């Protein structure tokens, strides 16, 4: 912005200066020429009486005096005799009235003078080109210097002005960047022109509102946890109090399954708290970390694990904890639902359009896609784990696909982080 303002002022100043300096330079040139011609004309007027009335010898003396004073004067006497500077004699024929003759070496002022004896002598004064331009170059230099000085002054003022205008805008952008990076306390002190101050106030109001909403959501999640877990506690304690037997065992399993579902619902309600203002993590790093976590168990169970991870990071729109929980759910399913020694593979690759695709494939007996559709299911099933993974993938803007037979392949499509356009270079 600062650059644009400076460029705008530079362009405007240039136009104004050109509009002023070009006519001024032309005027200077014309005034110099006019002054020189006036001096020549004056010389003509001085000599006319002598040429008209005096004799040849007197005229010769007067002309030589003028030539000696630096004037280029010539008189063509009635008989053709040339007196004075021959270069001042006009090239062409001379008319009956005063004339001005332009030539390569200057301007000739030609004045026919009628003599008392009846003849006509021609008086001419050559005003050389250099005399007509005397002082013009210096005046032009002064004008150019003045122009450059004014231009630089305008640039300096424009830069100062641009700075004072862009500083509050820069602060606004920095605050927006901090908010975008997840700093919920970022606020700007409104400053600068009224419009920029208004934007600053609006940004602060927006940040405050987001903060309020997140706080309200945290309270809602806490309230949800309380409302769901309190009756769950009574249910669990009552179930515990039942006499031992198959019915009690079934009830305990059901309460466990219900409890896990409640945990998943509460965890889902807390997603925005985990994510803060901006959700984002590197899918490659998170998956690598989870594979490392599950490797000892895989080794203990003689499972061959094939891992394929890209070299660079793949940012996705998820909190690292959420992605870790989803990957844990998938790897946990593999370990729980396939026999000891069953190999599995984890593949992470870039997703078309941004984000990442995480594929977990095993060589086990395979799951039916009905498990995914059912979502939450009883103890021993993989339904809840897959449901967690599916919700996580959908929250990132992606989804979960289940490929049945041979074995089971779960494809987790994860969306890219929201565009943080505020970080564009300035």
């Amino acid at each position: 912005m600062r650059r644009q303002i400076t460029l705008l002022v530079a362009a405007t100043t240039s136009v104004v200066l050109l509009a002023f300096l070009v006519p001024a330079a032309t005027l200077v040139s014309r005034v110099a020429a006019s002054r020189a011609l006036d001096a020549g004309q004056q010389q003509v007027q001085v000599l006319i009486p002598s040429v008209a009335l005096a004799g040849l010898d007197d005229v010769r003396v007067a002309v030589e005096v003028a030539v000696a004073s630096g004037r280029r004067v010539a008189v063509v006497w009635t008989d053709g005799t040339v007196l004075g500077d021959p270069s001042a004699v006009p090239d062409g024929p001379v008319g009956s009235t005063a004339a001005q003759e332009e030539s390569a070496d200057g301007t000739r002022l030609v004045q026919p003078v009628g003599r008392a004896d009846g003849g006509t002598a021609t008086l001419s004064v050559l005003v050389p080109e250099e005399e007509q331009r005397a002082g013009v170059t210096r005046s032009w230099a002064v004008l150019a210097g003045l122009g450059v000085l004014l231009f630089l002054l305008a640039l300096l003022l424009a830069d100062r002005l641009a700075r004072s205008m862009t500083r509050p805008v820069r602060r606004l952008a920095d605050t927006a960047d901090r908010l975008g990076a997840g700093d919920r306390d970022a606020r700007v002190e409104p400053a600068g022109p009224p419009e920029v101050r208004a934007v600053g106030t609006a940004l602060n109001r927006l940040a405050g509102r987001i903060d309020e909403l997140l706080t309200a959501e945290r309270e809602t999640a806490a309230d949800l946890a309380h409302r769901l877990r309190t009756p769950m506690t009574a249910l669990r304690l009552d179930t515990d109090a039942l006499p031992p037997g198959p019915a009690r065992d079934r009830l305990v399993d059901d309460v466990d399954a219900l409890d896990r579902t409640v945990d998943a619902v509460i965890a889902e309600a807390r997603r925005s708290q985990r994510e803060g203002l901006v959700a984002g993590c590197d899918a490659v790093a998170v998956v690598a970390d989870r594979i490392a976590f599950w490797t000892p168990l895989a080794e203990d169970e003689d499972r061959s694990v094939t891992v394929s991870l890209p070299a660079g990071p793949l940012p996705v729109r998820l909190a690292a904890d959420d992605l870790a929980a989803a990957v844990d759910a998938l790897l946990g399913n593999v370990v729980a639902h396939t026999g000891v020694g069953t190999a599995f593979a984890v593949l992470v690759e870039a997703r078309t359009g941004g984000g990442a695709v995480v594929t977990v494939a095993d060589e086990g007996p395979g799951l039916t896609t009905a498990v995914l559709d059912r979502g939450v299911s009883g103890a021993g099933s993989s339904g809840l784990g897959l449901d967690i993974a599916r919700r996580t993938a959908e929250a990132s803007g992606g989804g979960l696909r289940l490929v049945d037979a041979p074995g089971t392949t779960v494809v987790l499509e994860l969306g890219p982080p929201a565009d943080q356009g505020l970080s564009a270079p300035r």
Partner: protein
Amino acid sequence: MAQLLVVEDDDRIRGAVVRALRERGHVLSSAAAGLEGLRLAVDGTPDLVLLDLGLPDLDGVEVLRMLRAVSAVPVIVTTARDDDASVVRALDAGADDYVVKPFAAAQLDARIRAVLRRAAGDADDGAGPVTVGGLVLDPRSRRVTLDGAAVDLAPKEFDLLAHLMARPGAVVTKRQLLAEVWQLPYGGSDRTVDVHLSWLRRKLGETAAEPRFLETVRGVGVRLAVPAP
């Protein structure tokens, strides 16, 4: 047997907790509100207080602070809030332990006994390290050594080992471990315990095929074996 005070506003939970703990041999008194709970805690001098944080008259953390001003009685907080901030707030206010709802009676009883043991340990100037064969676990410094060499364990690995070392030779089910170490409900497909056991085995220098301390009892659970002297 211990004398316990339950401060809980929900009638069903309070009744169920009282019944369950009474069946396990404790003597119970109960209060449905914070102020009444404070009065009973001060007047009745219970061995331990089970305090719910969501009370109708006073915030549970405030009750805890007020109680701490006049009494050093062990307190286990019971609450539906399991977010880190709530846990830290309660522990900072002086809670000795924290049980997230919903809890099983057995889990609650185990925690009560553990807190009471710790409290008794405080009175005896510290609970000593637990030793099983070459394995030594110090619950106070949270350090573990194997044949004299320090073993670097993650917090959950330490808790898991501590739970098993407290019951040497006994088979502990995965359901029990999940409930008492993780405070999580059991699911048939849950492998959290297994993966931590694998890590623990690796750090103790053993494998599932050749266990030294951690023996899997297929279909039942795990047992900390006591090596022959």
